[in-house]
């Protein structure tokens, strides 16, 4: 798709934005140019801290508290310069000609008013429509966005509506004045994959139908590939490159972009279960719940063999982290048991012996909260060695050095540092070293790569793989990211609503026929192909995605029956 020069809607030149921190103004955006035409959807992508969201706000002439647009920047919207426009002039644009869709719909709707009242606020204020007309229009938009019960849903309060639906209602609200441009600020980041796909389809349709220009901000390449006509890549407040979507995906120019595209080339050869051996960890018919609450786990059973990686996948609330808590003993199960090499593990970690505790270690998702910021690296890694093996003095120091070598960090340099001085990837490595210091045979990896930038994540996966080979470790890999599963897993367990839906070796799991939920989950994960969403919608049909598809799962299906055994 090509856009004409005369159709330029938004022209940003040399945009510089500063943020206030530690008593001084620091540059966040360092001179970015951006041109958006009528009807064009531009994807802004980059890692956290790239300044995507700040640029999005600036496109509306808005600087958040604690930030300021530096003089000399130019933001021209449809011929009007926003940097020196009066507050009233800028306000007249917002809501009517430029609209905004926020990341967290649940927090961005006012809890005190009904959805439809918030929807009609802008059109009534700008005297575009009378109140009742605006309400009718809202209902029509709800219908177009395929919200269930469009006649009635608007008269609910925000907390009475689910996350995916709220996000669509917010898109409808942005459309209420038929703006020329909408800023989407990570609209699906907080949603599960199966819900995300509904929202993506709805947003894409409505933007197409009204020929609205949009800036789509996200960190997810596959998502932006579906939504955008052009993609702009940002790094630390500067533009890396910009190109039409097809071109950008097939032929990136800059090294940084290539590195983003190149990830997940890494795959591990699938290992088979060792014959005639007892599983290292065996979860047997486990039920669990939090203090008399509803059942979180319902009859969960699976095995993990020595030296193998089992990936547990599922959406939030599927019970995958709870399973890990049961294994580690943080949450004693209400029924069933956990066996270690055939011997039952005491249900609570408090009753386990030092040796039992040592065998089973954990690596966490957020390295920031997993390491005590006030303790030196040497003690973080040294403490388990000292605690379990009773090492002291030089023996302890040698062990710490050895562990630092193992995770590819130079001992002399990191020995006396504190966690806040390290980067995210380095912190995650320290977390791994702490687990290794206990000399375990089994490690639970809870979303270890999801908070990391892609390249760093790849490095961590390679490290984990190497350690597995060297030390014959078993991993339980909790993740929602199927790319990670593809690269590192030997076996896969799919969970939904606290139950194991399907399990088996990786290759079997990625080849049909699937259990319908596995199928839905696998098909909902966006792929880099820009036509993925279109193809998928054609294949499955518009009413067979997301919640609707979930409801369609036939309980009498052969595959579904099979799991109940």
């Amino acid at each position: 798709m090509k856009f004409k020069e005369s159709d330029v809607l938004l022209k940003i030149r040399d945009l510089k934005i500063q943020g206030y921190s530690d008593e001084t103004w620091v540059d966040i955006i360092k001179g970015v140019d951006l041109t958006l035409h009528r009807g064009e959807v531009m994807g802004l992508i980059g890692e956290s801290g790239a300044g995507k969201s700040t640029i999005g706000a600036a496109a509306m002439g808005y600087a958040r508290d604690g930030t300021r647009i530096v003089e000399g920047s130019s933001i021209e919207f449809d011929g009007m310069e926003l940097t020196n426009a009066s507050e009233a002039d800028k306000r007249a644009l917002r809501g009517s000609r430029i609209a905004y869709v926020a990341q967290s719909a649940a927090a961005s709707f006012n809890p005190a008013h009904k959805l439809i009242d918030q929807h009609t606020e802008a059109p009534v204020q700008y005297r575009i429509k009378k109140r009742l007309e605006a309400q009718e229009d809202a209902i029509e938009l709800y219908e177009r966005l395929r919200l269930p019960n469009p006649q009635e849903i608007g008269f609910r309060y925000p907390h009475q509506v689910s996350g995916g639906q709220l996000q669509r209602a917010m898109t409808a609200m942005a459309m209420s004045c038929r703006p020329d441009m909408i800023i989407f600020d990570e609209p699906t980041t907080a949603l599960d994959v199966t819900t995300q796909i509904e929202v993506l389809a709805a947003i894409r349709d409505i933007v197409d139908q009204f020929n609205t220009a949009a800036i789509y901000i996200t960190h997810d390449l596959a998502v932006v590939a579906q939504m955008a006509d052009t993609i702009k890549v940002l790094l630390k407040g500067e533009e890396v490159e910009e190109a039409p979507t097809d071109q950008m995906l097939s032929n990136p120019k800059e090294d940084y972009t290539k590195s983003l595209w190149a990830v997940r080339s890494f795959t591990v050869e699938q290992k088979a279960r060792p014959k005639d051996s007892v599983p290292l960890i065996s979860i047997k018919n486990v039920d669990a719940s939090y203090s008399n609450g509803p059942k979180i786990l319902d009859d969960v059973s699976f095995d993990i063999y020595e030296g193998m990686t089992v990936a547990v996948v599922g959406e939030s609330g599927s019970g995958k982290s709870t399973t890990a808590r049961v294994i580690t003993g943080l949450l004693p199960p209400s029924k069933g048991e956990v066996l270690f090499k055939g011997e039952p593990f005491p249900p609570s970690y408090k009753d386990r012996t030092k040796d039992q505790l040592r065998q089973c270690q954990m690596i966490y998702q957020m390295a920031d909260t997993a390491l005590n910021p006030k303790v030196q690296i040497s003690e973080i890694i040294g403490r388990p060695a000292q605690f379990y093996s009773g090492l002291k003095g030089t023996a302890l120091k040698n062990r710490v050095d050895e562990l630092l070598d193992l995770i590819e960090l130079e001992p002399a340099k990191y020995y006396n540092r504190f966690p806040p001085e390290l980067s995210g990837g380095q912190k995650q490595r320290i977390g791994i070293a702490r687990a290794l210091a206990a000399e375990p045979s089994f490690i639970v990896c809870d979303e270890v790569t999801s908070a990391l930038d892609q390249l760093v994540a790849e490095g961590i996966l390679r490290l984990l793989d190497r350690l597995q080979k060297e030390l014959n470790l078993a991993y339980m890999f909790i993740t929602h990211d199927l790319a990670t599963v593809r690269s590192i897993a030997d076996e896969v367990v799919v969970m939904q609503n606290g139950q194991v839906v399907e399990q088996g070796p990786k290759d079997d799991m990625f080849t049909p026929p699937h259990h319908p939920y596995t199928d839905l989950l696998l098909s909902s994960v966006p792929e880099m192909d820009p036509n993925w969403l279109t193809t998928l919608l054609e294949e499955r049909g518009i009413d067979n995605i997301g919640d609707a598809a979930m409801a369609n799962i036939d309980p009498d299906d052969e595959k579904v029956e099979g799991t109940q055994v």
Partner: protein
Amino acid sequence: MSFFVVGYYALLLVTSCLAAYFNQRQAFLVLFSLTLVSFVLGIVGGVPALRAVATCAGLLLFAGMIAYAFREFLIYLSSDDMGKELRTAPLTAAFGMFVIFTYAIMGIFAPWIAPHGEAEVISSAFAPADENMLLGADQLGRDMFSRIVFGARNTVALALVGTTLAFILGAMAGLLAATKGGFFDGVMGRTADVIMSIPSLIFALLMLSIFGGSLAAPSTSFWLLTGFFCVVGLLFLAAAAEGAMGWLIGAAIAVGVAVGLALFGTSIFNASEVILILVVAIIYSPRVYRLTRAVAGNVVVMDYIEAAKLRGEGNWYLIRREILPNSTAPLIAEFGLEFCFVFLLIAGLSFLGLGIQPPTADWGSMVRENATLISFGDITPLIPAGAIALLTVAVNFVVDWMLHRSSGLKE
């Protein structure tokens, strides 16, 4: 038009113009609004009012200059890291630090600074100030200035000890509740709720009516103090002891230490003071508990605590190595805040005649003893009251800055 009026306005106008010229918006705003205020007050109240405004402005300027110089002095003395922190301190906080520093000097070196003894009668009642007595004499003819200096020692020391005890009890219980959770946490929380639903002054009056005042018996105060230390010891035991043997040995040590500390305490303070300390410690420990529980509660949910628990670490290690280092900043600020409350409560009780007993020099009681002078337009009773206010204001200024620092730069 006197020389003073002309000079005053000229000075204000010149400085505000200079501020405006050099683009110092805030300074200009302050200076020019001062000019306008002086103008209005000058018309309404004449030269005396103008003089009052000028004096106030001058005093503020003086305080500001002291604060600025003191901050630079501290930055010069301290290490690089500390210096960087100190640079962020607003002038109010620097002023607070200066005042605290002065009070500390005054309290520690009271016998050398004060020209007369604490209870020494040297002239007639309410004698006016002369070269011998800086602030005149009180209702018994004792030197007011000397008593204020000694008051710094008595009142502040009592408040400090009270706050410390409240802190040890409250913080220990809070840390333990956060680490243990479950039943213990629930019981402690409800207990704190109940104690806090009695207004602090009222609760203090109730307890003092029973144990305190001039009728307090030394033996009662000793046993109460021992009991208090035993409770604290029990909390430490619950955190540190492992196994029945550990409990047994720990309990023996705890009781011994408690008796020793109680003996030490009663040898320093007299019976009514010990009761007063215990009363404030009991009243304020639930508040400390609440805050510590909240702060520690935020730390306990961190994954590194989970990692340490799964490693098999005991409560004592968790509290000492993992939780405490991550809660010090808010706890120190809270200590300052609680000190202010305790100090004001003790001052209030003494003012009511139920706190520190005569003849010990104490600011609260001094206000009460000299209150009659107010109706003669004499400001003497305001001096000890002002001394109380100045210290609490100073501590609050410092705490305000620390809270702002520890809450990050969210605003």
